[in-house]
């Protein structure tokens, strides 16, 4: 094994939420603005390098 190198093994976090507002219920977290997500990713030390979404969810490829 190399003395040092890039760590491939990922850490994975899954969070589930609930709410009573039916307006929020349809889009919910998808309504978060991109700048807010970027701030969270900054804390993690990642940035968005590519993104795609569909009717159901949004997907982001991150740096690192």
């Amino acid at each position, binding site marked *: *094994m*190399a003395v*040092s*190198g*890039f*760590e*491939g*093994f*990922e*850490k*994975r*976090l*899954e*969070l*589930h*939420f*609930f*709410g*009573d*507002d039916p307006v*929020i*219920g*349809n*889009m*919910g*977290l*998808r*309504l*978060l603005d991109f700048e*807010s*997500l970027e*701030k*969270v*990713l900054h*804390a*993690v*030390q*990642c940035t*968005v*390098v*590519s*993104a*795609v*979404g*569909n009717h*159901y*969810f*949004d*997907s*982001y*490829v*991150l*740096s*690192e």
Partner: protein
Amino acid sequence: SSLFVYPTKIIIKTCGTTQLLKSIRPLIQLACTMGLMICSCRYTRGNFIFPKAQPYPHTSFKEEIIFLENNLPNNLYYRKASVLPSKLSSHSWHVFSACDESHILMQNMPDELYTIEVCMTELDRVLAGKFFRRPNDGKNGDSAGMEMTEITGIGDINPDALICDFAFDPCGYSMNSILGDRYSTIHVTPEDGFSYASFECVGSIYDDPNDIVEVLKKAVQVFRPGTVSVSTTYTDHEVWKCVAKAIEPLGMKFRSCTMDEFPATGSVVFQTFTTRRK
């Protein structure tokens, strides 16, 4: 690394020396501004190849658990942390799960979806070489990623899915694939000596079991790894039995299987396989 944002669910998966758990508090706060309260949390990872390089709070699983305990709200009362071992000392599966009362009650109503997380090490050198950028290739991360998706066969794993891919410079690759409400993702670190690739996908208990067998086969064949570990998370199904059907025909030998149960998450089965030559 990848981020998936659903209306009431966030999945974030990061490699390297990222401080993933530091996202918990800001994500909970952001969700709160949308009128959403956290009701469950699941954190998983394998064994780091370079554990001493990890920054706080990822310095040890014990530190991670303490950090999680301190940053989750009290309503996530039901909590459990466990390490699922294997016969390979370098491969074990770390799981922390927490949920509120409503999720404990819902355990009698099984979730139709399951998650499969595959970690592969000692990748075939020739195949791993396809994830290096050619010098002065005149491409950007998106176009180089698209080329890697095509030449490696990753695009054939699920031809109907929409793929978002990216090639890093000088090497490395990430892709998210989306189809309906399902995602899959692949991340590759191709450097010899610490080569690694992961594949993750979501399936439904109502799918044809042969579908997941074929998908797993195709994903592992892209890399022909020396060692494969597969973690299957589900609430009411025996999909984990499909894993060996997919991996063993590729010339790999089943080494170990461990299982544990977690609040809200359900059952986690951790299986390992190595090439027969080992």
